């Protein structure tokens, strides 16, 4: 494998890790109520 391929893989993997962290953090079970609250707030009379 040449340098370009290794870089390519590294960047791909790095992006995936960041993505997994965001998903993990967003979907943390204990946050469910809090995280989903805004969708009800916008339904208020405006």
């Amino acid at each position, binding site marked *: 494998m040449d340098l*370009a391929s290794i870089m390519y893989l590294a960047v791909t993997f790095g992006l995936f890790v960041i993505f997994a962290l*965001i998903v993990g953090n*967003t979907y943390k079970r204990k946050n469910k109520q809090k*995280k*989903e609250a805004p*969708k009800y707030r916008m*339904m208020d*009379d*405006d």
Partner: protein
Amino acid sequence: MGKPQYHTDIVKSFVNWSLVWGVVAVLVGVIVSFQMINPDLNYPPYFTFGRLRPIHTNAGIYGWGVGTIFAMFIYMVQRLCKTPLWSLGLARFQLWLFNATIIAAAVTLLLGYNTTLEYHEMEWPIDLMIVVLWVVFSINIIMTIIKRKEEQMYISLWYMMAALIGVAILFTVNALAVPVSAFKSYSIFAGTNSANVQWWFGHNAVAMALTAPPLAMFYYFLPKSTGVPIYSHRLSIIAFWSLIFMYLWTGAHHLLWTPIPDWIQTLAMAFSIMLIAPSWGSVINGYMSMKGQWHQMRDNYLVKFLILGITFYGLQTLQGPMQAIRTFSAFIHYTDWVPGHIHMGTMGWVSLVSVAGIYFLLPRIYGREVYSIPLANLHFWLVVIGQLIWSTSMWISGILQAGMWNAMNADGSLTYTFTETMVEMYPYWWIRAIGGVIYLIGILVFIYNVYMTVQKGKEPAPKLLEVEGRA
């Protein structure tokens, strides 16, 4: 606490003017579709296909598309922030400048002042007007958000802010040019660089002007129309950030097999495939919000527009990545297939969601019920059928065209001359033009319905009046 006094007159004006430019865009589109069938319909120097086609695209994007964005953002931002628009004066100036810009763009394009950069054909003085317009608009929206009374910013506001920033960056960079005279300039970018910058702009203008804003509308109008909240706030977080991160890598899928560096093409291809995920994040969020509510597809015409709209978005974001694959691009790029794709996005996705928004607004800004639901349904079927005829005919002709361009004899020679392949397109161009006419009739039904609502609509149910403060 009393209701804030929302500004609705300015929303009315933007809705009305965006409809005017929308009709112009579709009408010019129908005209150029007939010019492609019969070259004698070109009346030089002003009314030729080459000069009218940029007017069609730019009236569609900047007149109808951006005009609707102005109307909807100004409406939504006040409701979501529970506060009146930051500056009504600025918004009135914006309305004036908006129409001046669109008229100036149409006149200069007709005169042949054309940079040839697609969706950015206007020459530098018009570019300056557009920049001022966007800055004025952005300041007003952002200041309203900063002064908001509701701490939490709803999903729609994220997409709105991303669109404000994205369009500003994209448009300004692609506009960089050295003026020679009042209406002629040369881009500071040359050749391959110019191509790469243009399609970074071109593709992401679709992201920031024709994807993020309709998504902002969709996330707002769907729950408001069905009365049921969006399925998942968390899914929308993931979809939003992935979408605005990934889009910017994909411009070069418009340039596959051209002389731009290979690695840019490969990245564009990979990210285009990945974009399916965030796009479908929103589609799934829309569909799941309908759980237990599917009967509304029958009972509530607004839902019909919105759900068909998001369905076309879903199809669009599957077809797009497919086209971004090198082998597939080699076959269909430069053929009629591509306009078929684009028009599913503009006529299907963007316009269906925008008109749903307008139908939703009418009772709330005019204080009158929509004049006729049967007419709204007629409008729906005309535009959906018109668009399907339009796009399907172009997909078929695109494949036929590509097949003929690539056909080779046993001795390695080409089977068809270029003209022989063009002649085969005429029947499909007729079908396309008919699809366009049906679509235009649909728009006219819509405008009649809007006009009659304003003139003769019934007083709304008391609840609505109570809900809406009127400025």
